C-alpha cells in the first residue's frame, strides 16, 4: 500500500468515527435537553455543564496528547509523530473555542458575570493561546524539519507548564464550582445527571478521536502531495 493509499484509508476511518460520534452527540443532546431533570436552584442553564465540561476535557486531552507526542518526536524524530501532534493541537484549539464560549455563557446566569479572572477560566484561556501560538509558530517556519523540531520543543514546554498552572489554581481564590465528580467520596451528582454527563464525556472523547484521525490523515496527504510535487520538479 502506498503512503497515499494508507492516508486515504486513515481519512476514511476517521470519517466513520466522526460520524458515529456526531450521531452520539445528537443522542446526548436529546437526552440532556429532554430527558434529564432540571436542577432546582440553578435552572436549565445548569445543563450547559453537560456540554461544557466534556468539551473542556476533550480539549485538555488534545493538548496533553500533543505534549506527549512532542516528547516522543524529540526522541524518535519520526515525521508521523509531528503530524499527529499538530493534528491534536488543531483539534484542541477548535474544541477550546467551544469551551471558552460555553464557559461564559454558563457563568453569566450561574455566577452573575460573563468572565471572572478565576484562575481556572484564565488558565484554560492561556492554554488556548499557547496552542494557538504553537500553530502560528508552525505557520511561520517554512522548513518542515525545523518546524517539526521547534514545535516539539514548544509542545514539551507546554506540557511541563500545565501542572504549574494547576498549582496556581489552588492558591488563588476561585469562583469555579468545587469538583463534583472527582472527589474522593462518592460523586454528588444524582444518578440520572451522572449518566448524561458520562455519556457526553464518552461522545466528546470519541469526537476528539475521530477529528484527530481525519486531520492526521489529511496532514499525511498534504505531505505526500508535497513529496510528489518535489519529485516532479527534479
Amino acid at each position: 500500500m502506498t503512503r497515499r493509499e494508507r492516508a486515504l484509508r486513515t481519512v476514511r476511518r476517521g470519517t466513520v468515527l466522526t460520524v458515529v460520534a456526531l450521531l452520539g452527540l445528537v443522542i446526548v443532546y436529546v437526552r440532556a435537553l429532554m430527558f434529564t431533570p432540571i436542577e432546582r436552584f440553578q435552572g436549565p442553564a445548569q445543563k450547559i455543564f453537560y456540554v461544557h465540561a466534556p468539551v473542556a476535557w476533550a480539549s485538555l486531552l488534545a493538548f496533553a496528547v500533543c505534549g506527549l507526542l512532542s516528547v516522543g518526536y524529540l526522541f524518535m524524530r519520526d515525521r508521523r509523530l509531528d503530524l499527529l501532534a499538530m493534528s491534536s493541537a488543531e483539534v484542541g484549539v477548535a474544541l477550546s473555542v467551544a469551551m471558552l464560549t460555553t464557559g461564559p455563557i454558563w457563568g453569566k446566569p450561574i455566577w452573575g458575570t460573563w468572565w471572572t479572572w478565576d484562575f481556572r477560566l484564565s488558565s484554560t484561556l492561556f492554554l488556548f493561546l499557547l496552542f494557538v501560538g504553537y500553530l502560528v509558530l508552525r505557520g511561520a517556519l517554512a522548513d518542515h524539519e525545523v518546524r517539526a523540531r521547534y514545535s516539539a520543543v514548544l509542545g514539551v514546554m507546554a506540557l511541563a507548564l500545565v501542572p504549574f498552572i494547576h498549582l496556581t489554581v489552588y492558591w488563588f481564590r476561585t469562583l469555579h464550582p468545587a469538583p463534583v465528580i472527582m472527589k474522593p467520596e462518592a460523586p454528588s451528582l444524582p444518578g440520572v445527571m451522572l449518566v448524561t454527563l458520562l455519556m457526553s464525556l464518552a461522545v466528546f472523547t470519541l469526537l476528539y478521536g475521530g477529528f484527530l484521525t481525519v486531520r492526521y490523515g489529511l496532514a499525511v496527504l498534504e505531505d505526500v502531495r508535497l513529496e510528489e510535487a518535489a519529485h516532479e520538479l527534479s
Partner: protein
Amino acid sequence: MTTRTAMAIALKDLAIEWRTKTAFMSSLVFAVLVLAILFFARDATAVSAFDLAPGALWVTFTFAGMLGLNRAFLVERENHSLDGLRLSPATPTAIFLGKVTGNLIFVGVVELVSLPLFVVFYDIAIWRQVPLLLTVIAMATVAFVAVGTVLSAMVVRTRFSEVMLPVLLLPFLVPPIVGAVQITWRILAERPLAEMSGWLSLLGAFDIVFFALALLLFDAIITE
C-alpha cells in the same frame, strides 16, 4: 571548558551591546514610561499607588525584559554568526548558558536601574525588605530568562520575531509572574514570611524545572 565558553559568549554579547547601548537604553526608557503610564492610568481617588505598585513593577519588568531577550539571537542572525557558533567546538549547553548569562545580566541591570525609579514614583519604603525583594526579583528573572532564551532562539528564524516572542512567552510567564506579584505585595505590606512560602516554593520549583528543561531542549534547537 563549558563554563569558559559560556562566559566568552556572554561577554561577547555584552561587549556588542556595550558599544551602542541601544537595546539597554530602549529597555530602560521603556521601563520608565510603563511605570509612569501605569501610575497615571488609574483613578487616583480609587486606586492607591501602593495597591498598584506590585502589578506595575512586574508588568514593567516583563515587557522591558522581553525587549532585551530578542536582542540575544537577533545579533546572531546577521552575518549568519549562529552558524559560526554551531561550527565552533562550543557545545549547545555552553551556548545556552552563555546566552542565558548574557540575558540575565542585561535584564538584571535594567531591573536594578528601574527599581529605584519605581521606589521614587510609587513612593514605596522598601529598605527593610530589600534582600527579600531582590531574591524574588532574581527568582522570577531566572524563570523569565530561561524560557525566553529558548523561545527567542526559535523565534529568531521567523519573520515577525518581535511579535512572536511575546505571543509564545507570555503564557509561560503566568505562574512565575503571578507568584512574583503575590510575593511582592506581601513583602511591601510587610507580611510574615509564612504567608509567602507557598508562592516562593512555586517560583522556585518553576525555576528548577524550566531551567533544566530549557537546557535539555536547547540542544534540539541548535543542532541541525
